[in-house]
């Protein structure tokens, strides 16, 4: 490797630089993000202030249509003959007023109080002595849900309201310079052409708002309440501020469960991600090495496990490794004592990691195989001319190439593994239990603990708090790595 002007070494230098730059940017982007927060906030504030200024100026400078549209939505459209559009705006305004009058105001108030009547019992003297009567209180869960919906409705209405003013102003300006306002037909047509993206986005994003954003806001709010097994929804719960976070992170019973679980989650995510990855790369290299026959057959053997639904292979592994499963039977026949591997923490953890290898290696093998076939062969040619040995070529060409291409995949895998519910829950259920309290076991991840806190014990507030903490961990990991990575920065380069 002496010539500096040949293709191969230029490629190495390039890849090396890129990888080094990637790591350099780690720290810089992390610091940069926090340094940028004040400027971004300032920008945001200025934008809002500008909005208010424009809001006032439009009213002062606009015609009657614009001014009326501040009070009666759609006036600006009516004034310029856009009947359907105007009716639409008007209908939205009327619906909003009706909603607020009959439901919305109450819902917003309920969001503050979360219900004022708590469950209580009293002894009814009329029915006879000692007869207890249970009076259910307000269902705080519903108060919270309706409150969040009301807030979203209010924001959506404000957006439509501003849109109404904007279109009134646009109509006014058009009429000043003598442009005819667009007809309803034209508006509809532009929805399939210039504004096609709005149509597609609304359709695709509606589901996201209902099934992801709304529930998430709701659950984030739950983390600040005392909605647990002692305060179920029917007896009413209230706001408690940061109490749950303090409970989990401070020093007491809960935090002595939280930190071990967090520790194991991180150990697990590292093992599961990197072991799977490197062993998968190794397997792909073996299969793709020169002169090995039947590459397709070998690949098929491993790919089968990808095709089979994960829950099948996980439950299968669970029963194979169980106390009376075939593997134990075989060991007993060979003279080993019968043991239950799922009962001790260390063996259960080992099982979880190795079964995950069984599931995960084929994925990285498959991906790496695809990449290996795409490495430009002339790189190897010129390296060979330079006299590079096989090992050197692997170290200097193959490995950097694979690492470079699969970098983003590795990050998503890591985050996926932090939230890997299936493998843990279907194999061990989080057990063995006993070392930790609060329903967490030795193999529990944060996310399986979250599941058992909601599904088994009804401690929703703690579950939500854990969810938020998991989010913080994931976002720190990806903040460090995603920002400045080529995927978000250079997206225009590929077009």
């Amino acid at each position, binding site marked *: 490797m002496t010539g500096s002007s040949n293709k191969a070494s230029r490629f190495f230098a390039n890849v090396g630089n890129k990888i080094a730059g990637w790591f350099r940017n780690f720290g810089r982007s992390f610091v940069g993000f926090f340094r940028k927060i004040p400027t971004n906030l300032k920008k945001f504030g200025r934008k809002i202030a500008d909005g208010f200024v424009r809001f006032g100026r439009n009213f002062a400078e606009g015609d009657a249509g614009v001014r009326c549209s501040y009070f009666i939505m759609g006036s600006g459209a009516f004034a310029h003959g856009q009947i359907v559009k105007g009716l639409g705006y008007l209908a939205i305004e009327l619906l909003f007023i009706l909603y607020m009058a009959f439901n919305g105001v109450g819902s917003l108030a309920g969001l503050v109080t979360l219900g004022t009547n708590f469950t209580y019992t009293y002894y009814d003297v009329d029915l006879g002595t000692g007869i207890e009567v249970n009076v259910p209180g307000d269902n705080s869960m519903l108060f919270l849900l309706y409150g969040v919906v009301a807030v979203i409705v209010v924001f959506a209405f404000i957006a439509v309201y501003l849109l109404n003013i904007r279109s009134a102003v646009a109509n006014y300006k058009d009429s000043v310079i003598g442009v005819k306002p667009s007809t309803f037909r034209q508006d509809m047509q532009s929805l399939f052409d210039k504004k096609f993206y709005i149509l597609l986005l609304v359709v695709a994003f509606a589901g996201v708002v209902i*099934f992801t954003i709304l529930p998430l806001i709701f659950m984030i709010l739950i983390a600040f309440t005392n909605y647990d097994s002692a305060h179920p929804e029917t007896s009413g719960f209230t706001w408690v501020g940061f109490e749950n976070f303090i409970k989990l992170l401070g020093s007491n019973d809960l935090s002595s469960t939280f930190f071990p679980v967090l520790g194991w989650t991180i150990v697990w995510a590292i093992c599961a991600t990197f072991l799977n990855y490197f062993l998968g790369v190794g397997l792909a290299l073996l299969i793709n090495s020169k*002169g090995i026959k039947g590459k397709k057959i070998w690949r098929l053997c491993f790919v*089968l496990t990808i095709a089979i639904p994960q829950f099948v292979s996980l439950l299968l*592994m669970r029963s194979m490794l169980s106390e009376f499963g075939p593997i134990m039977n075989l060991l007993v026949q060979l003279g080993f004592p019968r043991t239950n591997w799922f009962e001790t923490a260390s063996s259960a953890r080992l099982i979880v990691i190795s079964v995950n290898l069984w599931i995960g290696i084929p994925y990285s093998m498959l991906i790496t195989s695809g990449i290996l076939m795409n490495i430009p062969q002339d790189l190897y040619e010129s390296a060979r001319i330079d006299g590079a040995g096989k090992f050197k070529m692997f170290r200097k060409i193959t490995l950097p190439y694979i690492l470079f291409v699969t970098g983003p995949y590795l990050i998503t895998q890591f985050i996926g593994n932090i939230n890997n519910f299936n493998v843990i829950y279907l194999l061990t259920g989080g057990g063995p239990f006993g070392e930790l309290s609060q329903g967490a076991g030795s193999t529990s991840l944060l996310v399986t603990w979250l599941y058992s806190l909601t599904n088994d014990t009804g401690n929703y507030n703690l579950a939500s708090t854990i969810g938020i903490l998991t989010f913080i961990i994931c976002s720190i990991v990806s903040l460090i790595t995603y920002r400045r990575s080529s995927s978000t920065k250079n997206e225009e380069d590929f077009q």
Partner: protein
Amino acid sequence: MDYDFKKTNGGMKRRKAISKSAIYTILTILSICWILPLIWLILQSFGMEPDAPYQSTYGSPDILPSHYTVNWYVKLFTETEFPTWYLNTLIISLACMVLSTFFTLSMAYVMSRFRFKSRKTIQNIGLILGMFPGFMSMVAIYYIFKGIGLAGNVENWKQILALIMVYSGSAALGYYVSKGFFDTVSKSLDEAARIDGATNSQVFRKIMLPLSKPIIVYTALMSFTAPWGDFIFASFILKENSGAYTVAVGLYRWIAMAEIPAQWYNLFAAGAVCVAVPITILFLLLQRYFVEGITGGAVKG
């Protein structure tokens, strides 16, 4: 390293042969590790104890069943709820396939081809949402469904509808891979069509979609197989309503019971085979698209 090249030809050959056979040995051992559990599953689905048609082989000291029967399959389809579960899952996954693919591709097309004010904001929202544990929102979703009468103690078809909505509702967030694909389709094609007077929706339907077969197949395959493998969402929404179970939930309940009445174990094996075989065939047929989908996104990322 230089000495290697000066060795005699025979030495080189022998070394190569040794390393080759070492690779073959490793590969053989590994593929046995990977294939054997699957074979064992299939054998279990046919296995029985002698003289007792429904006596499970699970827990018997033998590693392989001593007798074979098709009784488990007969029982599976005549005496259990498995056919219903199978049909439920099929309906859900077909509906999800259509809806999710449509949502995902729409989002990906918008993000790849349009530049508008809130574009970056929406992308960032998508990134942020992806970092919350998916299950976290489940409790709230359950209450929303309860509120609109699709969960709790309701008819089976309503529960199935609820599952379809859960699986496909947030599909747009998974637009990233398809966007990477659309980015590679040359923009000059759209521009030429635009000059010829095509609207954006025509460009999408008549130019982008026909050129995007690999990514359509990939997205459809992924969203079709997801309901077959999902356990957590389905079990949380369906609770004890066994008539609306998907195969994953139903079979899990069997194996969770298997600690006690062992006959469920072989039924599980038979059911698992019935689930795995069609999915596996589908997957192997479309494997090319799968690899293209993953690496396509990665290579471009």
